[in-house]
């Protein structure tokens, strides 16, 4: 049996990419516009909030603790070298609140929920359930996408706060138990060095990441083609695309905030 290699022209690839970007933008815009149109499926939104928020809590708790502890562990040796081990709380708080808390939480929830959304909606596409929903007079973007977008953005905000707090606790554990940093000193440096800009950066990012995770997951789910194999492909693509988009967005948001508020 001979396999023929099918070559696609770069123009076709560019067209496909442009079309995908257009479709994604339209879906995202519609998911936001639906917040101002009736009906609002509050029951579905609560269900998704439970799925995303409560469901992701264990993984966020574990990663938050680990990342905070690792951050403290890795920076401690350098700080010790310069006699600045007492500044460890400052390093952990800035790192966790502005960058690692939102980023790690976003990536964890992307792995867990973008894939879940893509596979659930993809299965509904291939079994004609989305068509059935439209035929029954329900707008799938209102019923399925908007609740996921709202719930993910809302819950990621709170999950990030939890991850930040647990990161700080993890960092404290390492600083206090392994390097003998005083409890009051640690928490004072943590608290004193955080300024409005840091907290603002750390809390605006999860909202954007939540939006990215849900819209990318829903986009790949809703554009699933080709049966169960297509569902698998959509699931993988949703995780990869949302993770990459989160990292890119993180860079640009940080840069933008530096441009607005100035460097520390």
């Amino acid at each position, binding site marked *: 049996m001979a396999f023929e290699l099918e070559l696609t022209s770069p123009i076709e690839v560019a067209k496909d990419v442009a079309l995908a970007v257009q479709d994604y933008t339209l879906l995202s815009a519609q998911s936001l516009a639906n917040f101002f149109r009736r*009906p609002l499926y509050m029951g579905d939104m609560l269900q998704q909030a439970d799925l995303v928020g409560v469901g992701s809590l264990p993984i966020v708790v574990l990663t938050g603790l680990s990342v905070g502890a690792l951050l403290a562990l890795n920076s401690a040796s350098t700080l010790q070298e310069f006699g600045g081990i007492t500044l460890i709380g400052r390093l952990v708080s800035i790192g966790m609140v502005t960058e690692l808390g939102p980023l790690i939480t976003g990536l964890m929830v992307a792995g867990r929920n973008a894939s879940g959304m893509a596979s659930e909606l993809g299965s509904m596409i291939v079994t*004609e359930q989305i068509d059935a929903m439209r035929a*029954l007079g329900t707008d799938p973007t209102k019923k399925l996408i908007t609740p996921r977008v709202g719930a993910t953005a809302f819950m990621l905000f709170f999950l990030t706060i939890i991850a930040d707090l647990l990161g700080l606790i993890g960092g404290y554990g390492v600083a206090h138990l392994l390097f003998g940093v005083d409890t009051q000193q640690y928490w004072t440096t943590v608290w004193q060095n955080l300024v409005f800009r840091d907290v603002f950066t750390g809390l605006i990012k999860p909202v954007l990441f939540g939006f990215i995770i849900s819209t990318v997951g829903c986009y790949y789910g809703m554009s699933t083609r080709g049966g169960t194999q297509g569902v698998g492909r959509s699931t993988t693509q949703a995780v990869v695309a949302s993770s990459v988009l989160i990292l890119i967005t993180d860079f640009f948001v940080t840069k933008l905030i530096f441009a607005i508020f100035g460097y520390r």
Partner: protein
Amino acid sequence: MPPTLASENPAASAVSPSGYAIEFDKVSIAFDENVVLDGVSFQLPHGETKALFGVAGSGKSTLLKLAIGLLRPDSGRIFVLGEEITHMPERELFELRRRVGIVFQESALFDSLKVSENVGYRLLEEHISAEEIERRVREVLRFVELERTYDMRPSELSGGMRRRVAIARAIVTKPEVLLYDSPTGGLDPVTSNTIVELIMKQRDVYKTSALMVTHRLQDAFTMATHQFDKATNQMVVLPKGQHCEVPMSFLILKDAKVIFDGDAHELATSRDDYIREYIS
């Protein structure tokens, strides 16, 4: 023998301005290079059931999806209940779809919902009271003889039961038009017969207009040679000579075009070689 629904469809007799429940006017659609329908025209009069035939991939399911606005034609015009849906915005289509029921090929039941929630889905969306929803859902489930499945999940049902639940979901709002996509496909003869009887009952008792995609010629001929007797609550064979007196017609698609549109008698006496081979 399926039991009867408590109330008949008051909207079924409403006549649209175009005079037809569904009208296709030179409708064409292609997916990439593949032309699926090419200049297809036909009319479905009110109260009539039209059986759609054609080999696999001939565009029968596509035609049904066009008729409910799930797909848009590349050219031509489509009228449903007197309203042109060719370029109708999706939001307006949602309104029109409340008057049209569809039974999908694989039932397309929402697997995260119970049977009762599936059947009452549209009623829930219309914010009808819980008592009224339960009453109407139980009524249609009784109609398809599946009241016992009220609290079950779709995954617990057999293929035939899922198909009957899908019919219940389609008829719960008493639509003016019903679209069936292979309602008896892959089912055993006894279950198929039950479903044919349900479709016949919708046609003869509730006067619902319907498009029915099927691969089973015998189902369509059963519908052309029988009618539903309300008194005995079962289908009865029509006397010889009256076979074409029921509102039943046939449409055959071949190579993206309509090659036959007529009643059972015209189909049986057709001299077209392809049609003769198809029905033999």
